[in-house]
């Protein structure tokens, strides 16, 4: 009893050490790409700001900094950046910086949900199709993923938004399903290279079931490659969310449409609707237009660079820099 317990704990120590070593090695690979590292830092900064603001708002801040209901009576609406409002105020006298940071959580929800569903769906579809290559399951899954491949995501989401309202959760879900179908094809190509390896045959001869082989031998070898594509899908999810809340909210009062209370796209929509995109207004009232647009750009490109860093970790022979 005692001996087996010791052996078990020893096994876990060894496992932990191996895991830590591998992680530090991978981290080293990731850090080689300075762009990926700076992307990670920028993403971390966004998340930290969002957490800070959430905590700050929970502690009971002055009402003037509320992103949705706040109003500062001491200043006119559209006031430029000043000491009390670092990025100025919008048409309703609300703090722009507060809105900007408040939106991060929704962008994160959309991106993470889309990414998660893409990973699960794309990997499982691709791996099963590759493992049972040539069977009816393969044929069916590949037809399905080809179907998803040719759907233009943003146009399709606009079409769907006419039929039923979108919130951040359903939007992330939809993009994830569309993206998972897309990624399945890439994953099948990767998994096909794995399933012909001798160790798969060895595992089969040793008596391993299909599920065991897929879970222990195939998936761990293909999953690192999915991250680059997943980041791509996450970027598309955020852009789609921004575009949907920009174009889609116009139909909100006429029934189903986008229902997104606050996001970077919605901030841009408000500025556009009030004419701040027109002519020189873009420059005069820059704080109503550029912060949100720059946030979208920075967030998405950081996601992309982090995805590249992950890809480098998965496949060190493939060098990006």
């Amino acid at each position, binding site marked *: 009893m005692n001996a087996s317990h010791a052996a078990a704990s020893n096994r876990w120590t060894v496992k932990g050490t191996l895991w830590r070593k591998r992680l530090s090695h991978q981290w080293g690979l990731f850090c080689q790409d300075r762009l990926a590292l700076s992307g990670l830092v920028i993403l971390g900064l966004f998340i930290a700001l969002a957490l800070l603001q959430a905590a700050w708002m929970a502690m009971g801040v002055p009402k003037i900094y509320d992103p949705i209901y706040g109003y500062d009576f001491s200043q006119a609406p559209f006031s430029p950046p000043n000491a009390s409002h670092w990025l100025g105020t919008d048409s309703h006298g609300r703090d722009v910086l507060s809105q900007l940071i408040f939106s991060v959580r929704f962008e994160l929800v959309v991106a993470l949900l889309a990414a998660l569903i893409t990973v699960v769906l794309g990997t499982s579809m691709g791996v099963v199709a590759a493992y049972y290559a040539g069977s009816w399951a393969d044929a069916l899954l590949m037809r399905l993923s080809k179907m998803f491949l040719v759907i233009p995501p943003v146009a399709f989401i606009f079409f769907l938004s006419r039929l039923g309202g979108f919130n951040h959760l359903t939007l992330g879900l939809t993009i994830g399903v569309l993206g998972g179908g897309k990624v399945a094809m890439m994953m099948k190509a990767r998994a096909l290279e794995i399933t012909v390896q001798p160790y798969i045959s060895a595992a089969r001869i040793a008596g391993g079931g299909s599920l065991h082989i897929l879970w222990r031998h195939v998936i761990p070898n293909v999953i690192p490659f999915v991250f680059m594509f997943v980041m791509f899908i996450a970027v598309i999810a955020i852009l789609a969310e921004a575009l949907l809340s920009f174009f889609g909210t116009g139909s909100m009062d006429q029934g189903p449409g986008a229902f997104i209370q606050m996001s970077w796209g919605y901030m841009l929509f408000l500025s556009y609707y009030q004419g701040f995109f027109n002519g020189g207004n873009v420059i005069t009232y820059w704080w109503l*237009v550029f912060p949100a647009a720059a946030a979208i750009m920075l967030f998405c490109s950081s996601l992309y660079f982090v995805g590249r860093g992950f890809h480098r970790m998965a496949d060190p022979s493939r060098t990006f820099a």
Partner: protein
Amino acid sequence: MMRFLLRRLMDLPLTVLLLVSLIWVVLELQPGEFAQAYLGGALSPQYREFLAEKMGLDAPAWERYLIFIKNAFTGELGVSLINFPKPVWDTILELLPRTMSLFFASFFIQLFVGYFLGQRLGWRQGRALDRIGTVLCALMWCVFLPLLSSLIIWVFNGVLKILPYAQFIDVSVARKYPDVDRNLTLLVIMGVAATMMIVLLLVQRRLRRLNRPGVKAGAMALLLLGCGGAFSLWLTFTPMGSVALSILHHMVAPVLTLTLLGAGFYALLMRDSMVQATKEDYVQLAKAKGLKDRVVRRRHAARNAILPLATSFLLAMAFTFDSAVLVESTFSWPGLGNALFHSLSGRGDMPVAVGIMIFLMAIASVAHLCLDVLYAYLDPRIRDRYAGAK
């Protein structure tokens, strides 16, 4: 190759069938009665009943599905509700050349710019220029499209006053030549552009075999001058040419927007692929042979760097479609994308929206098929996979 082609061709109707079924499922999932949801509340009850009976919207679900599929495949997409008796198919055919011209122009320019930019960045990898270029390309890819188009309108229309604001033809030109068919003009422009591209490509290949750079450059310059001269004469002196000139003038801003948006992405793909290619033995060999840097980059590295783009490119294709659809609405370019937007906003025009969605997806499937076949043609390994036992 035949076998491969046949297999892919057989897949095409199946993909379209799946897509149409998806659209049907989405429509069916709406709450309430199908006919009411599909046709909306804007019609008078008699018209709605008439249309519902004509389009088979009252039938039970499975019958509705069969009718929907049949209609989609025979092109019976119903009639528009806003322009009431106008068939959806006519709307699509009328708008198609406008979307296609915008899409093809921006697509080829994007690819071209991305190819050359990515090739340069990848060749000088790790330098400051490469880093700055990579970051800029990623930022441009993630730019918010409506803002970009507003900025372009402001700069080129408001400040510089050299480009028109929106629409696709000047009103004065349209009044002056009312009997010139605009879609025909667009088709002529596309045909001329395609022919010129093919001719230039063929002549260039022919001249390269001569192996005399001076002769080649001279001949190409002459040819370009000749073609350009003839084209500009046509543009200035014929009625159709004037219309074409106006349309081309209006096309510059959307194409510029799309190029700025998409070229960065293709440049990034090309750069990564190029970095990989520079590590290959044959590139090292070409360098060791003492070939010029430029020649190694263009002939040895870049040519081989194109193929690995295939998978990423397939992922990106649908998004390229998307941006073309979006840019139409920001520049009010009267194409399919703009019509889709209009049919989805306000009161709504479901038959038009459904028709355009089905058509866009079918076109995307055809484009996907073409790309597949093109890759098989370019990469013998894919072809062999089908020629063998499997």
